[in-house]
């Protein structure tokens, strides 16, 4: 990315990272964490809080899978089961997936990748985190005080009139967390426009930055709509105004239009950052510039744009106009094309590359395969006649888990592993990471592939009791989920372990291109001693980068088992 190359074995200042002052250790004062403006510290705080909420969502998922072992489960009551899947959806979507890559990796990396010292609005960034925590706390309270059973989709009039669970508390939590999203989006857009280092033109940006930019557009334009929609549900619930309740002159389908107007673009908020991460991983671990850079960059913008026009494909069976359904269906097919372009471009990048099978690369390759399946199964749901049968069945559940877990979560894990040395100054243990990646991949497929089958058979989603003939598939799915759970647990353990016992990382253990790899690991608070001047395109890999990386790793004392070394 720039002309700077770090000599192997020579760390800036020639001190070990435990001695060198960096963004983590310059102050151990709690106040300097809770009142920080440093995008890197905020990213770390997000990592911790997001991991917490992910664990809660995963526990709820475990409850669901245990319940579904038996077609007439006696372990949970109906009401408890309904609360479990609602909790799982609300936490995983609003408190894990939507913020995940943007708030952690986006916050940490965007300023570093563009050669800036921080985001445009550091205090707004901190406010984003506090809003996230506030929203999360309220939702947690809703769960502790008895739960919520409306599902994450809050359909009316069930949520506004009939449910007698903690709807107001949970919706308020989600409402507040939405502002966290909006502020992060504004921050990113302004930063990317205004704070790029000299020489860093748009088409020299890493593709991760393009992806984050597209994501931020959606965050800023879409989130306010769901905020107001949820507010209206609260108004109807507390003041009994007839907005969505037909008995009071309202229209329940109005809710669905407004809700999905955000919630469909929201799924692109969840996947676009993952696309950005994968571009970075593939480029680094094939030592190649991403094939078709401008196509990949523009496809992110195309997905963000088209994604706003397809919300009605969640409503094909509501009785909405046949003609509007057709419009939504055709645009849904169109929005699949830019995703296909990315997948083919990544595949072509591997051609004539120099492939290094690290754990992040395994996550990236897993992503490409699983996202392809997930994206293509979306076409089943875009196809009008087929969606009549598949809507609200387990097929939908399988589809969105393929893209959100097999896609977005795998990308998140791959990115965390890739940038872990940069963020913490430590390497994770490679063997365990590869094992976890493999377990995640296998466990994931075992969990969710049977759900395609049972979905086409007609088993509806959100069902506690189900017809006995579906039980075999559900048992298989639960068995797979235990492997998947292990695949998540293992990194949780070794990543924390590595903070104290992991090999100390130099600035560029991967020999990667990108401005973030030119600063020490962990970076100093001010990021760059001198703002770099950028003179070349992204991903200008040359063969000697690999040699440098190997020497770097040797200097770090990292023994890489079973890896072949170049001459």
């Amino acid at each position, binding site marked *: 990315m720039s002309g700077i190359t770090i000599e192997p074995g020579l760390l800036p200042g020639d001190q070990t990272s435990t001695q060198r002052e960096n963004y983590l250790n310059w102050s151990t004062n709690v106040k300097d964490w809770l009142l920080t403006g440093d995008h890197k510290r905020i990213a770390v705080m997000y990592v911790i809080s997001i991991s917490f909420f992910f664990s809660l969502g995963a526990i709820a998922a475990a409850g669901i899978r245990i319940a579904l072992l038996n077609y007439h489960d006696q372990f949970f009551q*109906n009401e408890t089961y309904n609360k479990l899947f609602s909790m799982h959806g609300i936490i995983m979507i609003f408190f894990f997936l939507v913020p995940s890559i943007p708030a952690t990796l986006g916050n940490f990396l965007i300023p570093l990748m563009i050669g800036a010292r921080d985001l445009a609005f550091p205090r707004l960034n901190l406010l984003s985190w506090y809003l996230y925590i506030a929203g999360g706390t309220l939702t947690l309270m809703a769960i502790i005080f008895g739960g919520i059973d409306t599902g994450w989709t809050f*359909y009316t*009039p*069930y949520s506004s009139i*009939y449910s007698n669970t903690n709807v107001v508390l949970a919706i308020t939590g989600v409402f507040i967390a939405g502002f966290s999203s909006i502020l992060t989006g504004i921050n990113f857009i302004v930063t990317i426009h205004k704070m790029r280092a000299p020489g860093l033109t748009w088409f020299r940006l890493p593709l991760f930055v393009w992806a984050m930019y597209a994501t931020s557009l959606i965050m800023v334009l879409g989130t306010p709509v769901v905020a107001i929609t949820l507010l209206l549900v609260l108004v109807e619930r507390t003041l009994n105004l007839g907005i969505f309740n*037909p*008995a009071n002159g309202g229209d*329940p*389908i109005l809710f669905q239009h407004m809700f999905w107007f955000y919630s469909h673009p929201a799924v692109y908020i969840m996947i676009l950052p993952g696309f950005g991460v994968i571009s970075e991983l593939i480029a680094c671990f*094939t030592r190649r510039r991403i*094939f*078709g*850079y*401008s196509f990949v960059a523009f496809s992110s913008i195309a997905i963000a744009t088209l994604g706003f026009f397809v919300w009605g494909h969640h409503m094909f*069976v*509501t*009785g909405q106009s*046949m003609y509007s359904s*057709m419009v939504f*269906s*055709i645009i849904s*097919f169109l929005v*699949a094309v830019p995703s296909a*372009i990315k997948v*083919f*471009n990544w*595949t*072509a990048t*591997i*051609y*004539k*590359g*120099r*492939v290094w*099978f690290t754990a992040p690369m395994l996550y990236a*390759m897993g992503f*490409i*395969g699983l996202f*392809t*399946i997930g994206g293509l199964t979306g*076409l*089943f749901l875009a*196809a*009008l*006649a*087929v969606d009549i*049968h598949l809507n*609200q*069945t387990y097929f939908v559940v399988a589809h969105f888990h393929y893209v959100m877990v097999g896609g977005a979560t795998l990308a998140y894990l791959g990115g965390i592993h890739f940038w872990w040395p940069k963020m913490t100054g430590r390497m994770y243990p490679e063997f365990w990471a590869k094992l976890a990646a493999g377990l995640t991949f296998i466990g994931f497929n075992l969990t969710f592939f049977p759900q395609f089958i049972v979905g*086409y*058979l*007609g088993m*509806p989603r*959100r*069902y*506690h009791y189900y017809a006995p003939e*579906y039980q075999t598939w559900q048992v298989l799915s639960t068995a797979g989920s235990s492997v998947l759970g292990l695949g998540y647990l293992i990194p949780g353990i070794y990543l924390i372990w590595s903070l104290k016992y992991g090999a100390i990382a130099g600035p560029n253990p991967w020999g990667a291109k990108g401005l973030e790899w030119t600063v020490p690991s962990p970076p100093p608070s001010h990021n760059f001693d001198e703002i770099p001047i950028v003179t070349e395109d992204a991903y200008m890999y040359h063969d000697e980068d690999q040699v440098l990386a190997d020497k770097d790793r040797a200097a770090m004392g990292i023994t890489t088992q079973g890896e*072949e070394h*170049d*001459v």
Partner: protein
Amino acid sequence: MNIPFFPEQASTFAKDVDNIYFLLCALTFFFTALVLGLITFFAIRYRRGNNKVDRSNAPEEHLPLELTWSIIPLVLGLGVFVWSAKPFTYVYRPPADALEIFVIGKRWMWHIQHTNGIRENNELHIPVDKPIKLTMISQDVIHGFFVPAFRVKRDVLPGRYNTVWFQPTKIGRYHLYCTEYCGTNHSEMGGWVTVMAATDYQKWITTGGAPGPTSTMQETLVSQGASLYQTYACANCHQNQNGVHGPSLYGLYGKERKLTNGQTVLADDSYLRESIVQPESKIVAGYQNLMPAYPVGAEAGQLTEEQVLAMVAYIKTLGTSPAPAPAPTSSGQQAHPYDGVPHTPPINGLSGTGPNGAKPADRTGTQAVPAVKPGPAPANAGLMPADGSVPQMPTFKAIPDIKSVTKPTLPAPSGSKPPAAPDVKQTSSTVTPGTAP
């Protein structure tokens, strides 16, 4: 153990859906195999330890390739779209001779009403090889009606009818599921659809649905509707031609109506329902907002969805009117009600072309005036009459000219029988045409 892989195909629609599904499976399998295969192949071939491959001139872009792998998926996607749009339109166009069945979803059961009076809960009995049209409404939250074997699904909404149709092709018993999350017992809100051979179905109907715990035989939907029509005295205002009170209901169903706000609406089931439950929402052009609302609800005096369905079913059977009665001699249809304009007798929908097969029990002839209890005349007709009688009085906004509100008597049209109205109490003197009360 029999592990199912694939649902039965039991409707005319199922095969179309399955064929598109199989094509999509093939495309998914092909592209996944292609991508996974290529990335695995490339990753292994071009692994960093392998120096025997040629890595020179590694391309960074290739416009023809980009266009190829953009346009081919685009064309395939559009092709699948077109192929699946056609059966979709088919689902929206029920044949005119479809057997109509009514469905009410409520937490947490399905209530099915056949027009012949059979009611069933969580069971639907239908004949094979006949088109079936379901008109559905929910009594509370959104539900979803789903029969996987038919590949048919439609949401069941509160406050509005949704219709869906299908034609079963295979005799058997198939799962029926609620498919839109509706609360605690959502997963228990299901049942069975039983498709029967024509002879068995006939037997089932004539024996009143082989009554068991879930099916009962009552009077036909239309006959219930006719009784309710009489009870609520709809004919007072909605006689066989456009009267001064309210527009005629004759031949209304399926026609278009122009509203006061200029909009034109189709008089379908939902319109009929809305006109009963919330008449103020749509006022026909040339009329005023006079009709009281008959809301649906659980309180005393409010209608149930079953009753609304029955009335709608009855109104749908009202044919075209007979020879029109003599036109009023005064200023025409904008005239204020009860100002002395002569009215033609309310025929109560029992003309010679009246409802097919409906034989309301207490009708004597074609000119019966409805047996109504005249309630008190409250200032606000929206209030419930204190004696519990049926609210029938339209709202009267400021009426400076009328000194007392009286129920009009109905002059006999020339040449016809005088009305036989044994139960009606006349509280005022007969109004002769042309004079004010």
